[in-house]
């Protein structure tokens, strides 16, 4: 395949990077809970984005595209490392250290997230923390658009039960 020119201008990239890098970092961190890996994938994602042949995309489309590259890279990484099968594992991972007003509450929250599978975390995070539509979530996560509603419903029910079990309430600690 012929090498591509830079897909966007330098200024446009700077703007896009400022808008998307922090949410992408949070997403990757939430998915893998490995700071070094999240940073590696973040950089590789933007490099791939800049050197890829892009279809015509608006800013929102570019953001989705970036999240999609990152998700694919993450899945590739897990496949290569033979760690776990994304979408099926529920591994017991240590809660990530998180800077927050109340560290104990944060650790509880991290623990609840660790009770979800990779795919459940991915769908919930994209939908509720990033505000992606179901179609966008389907494209980024690589699942069928019709399956997203059901998968999301199941993941949400599971997390809601975990949250209720922890006694968490909106706007305050239990």
């Amino acid at each position: 395949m012929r090498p591509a020119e830079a897909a966007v201008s330098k200024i446009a990239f700077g703007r896009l990077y400022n808008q998307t890098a922090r949410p992408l970092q949070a997403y990757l961190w939430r998915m893998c809970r490995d700071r070094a890996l999240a940073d590696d994938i973040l950089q590789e994602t933007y490099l791939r984005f800049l050197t890829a042949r892009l279809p015509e995309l608006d800013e929102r489309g570019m953001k989705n595209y970036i999240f999609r590259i990152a998700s694919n890279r993450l899945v590739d990484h897990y496949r290569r490392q033979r760690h776990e099968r994304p979408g099926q594992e529920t591994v017991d991972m240590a809660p990530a250290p998180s800077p927050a007003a109340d560290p104990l509450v944060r650790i509880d929250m991290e623990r609840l997230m660790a009770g979800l599978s990779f795919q459940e975390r991915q769908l919930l995070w994209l939908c509720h923390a990033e505000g992606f539509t179901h179609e966008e979530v389907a494209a980024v996560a690589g699942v069928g658009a019709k399956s997203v509603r059901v998968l999301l419903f199941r993941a949400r029910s599971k997390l809601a039960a975990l949250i209720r079990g922890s006694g968490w309430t909106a706007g305050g600690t239990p």
Partner: protein
Amino acid sequence: MKESACDREKEILAAAQGDRLDADQAAHLAQCAGCRDALLVSQWLQELARGEELRPPLPEAETIWRRSEARIRRRRQKWALAPVLLFQKFSRIAFFAAGTAFLLAYGPSLWHSLAARFSASGLAERLRSLTPSELLVLKAMFIVATAAIGVMILIAISCWLGDFLTRRKFFAGRG
């Protein structure tokens, strides 16, 4: 049990997050378990996401831009050199194939012809008539010549290998 989100979920979430729930929406929220789950999970994840804002510093956009430029440059070089590399590879294979074919085709007859000429020219008789000291000098000359040819072949192979490895390392660079 219905395994899909409520149709009013989007509307309820938007209203609840903006504190704009009207009586109808509030009544729906009170009776719809799906919407209650959605609201709870949404508030919980947004609370969790707020802590993500204090994550470690990101690499500069400029750095990523420069790395992407370098990667594009490397790809262009690789693309430009591809026909040359392909030709080199092909010519090496063709050379070895032609050499092997020649040896297989003419090797035995060449050998017999040389052996016949050697006996016909009387060279074997002349070698037998040489004194031991003359034979020693001849042997030394033969060894030196063979060694020189061997060294030249080794130099040629190492040059080719060095060139190959350098190019391989250059193109295998990360980025």
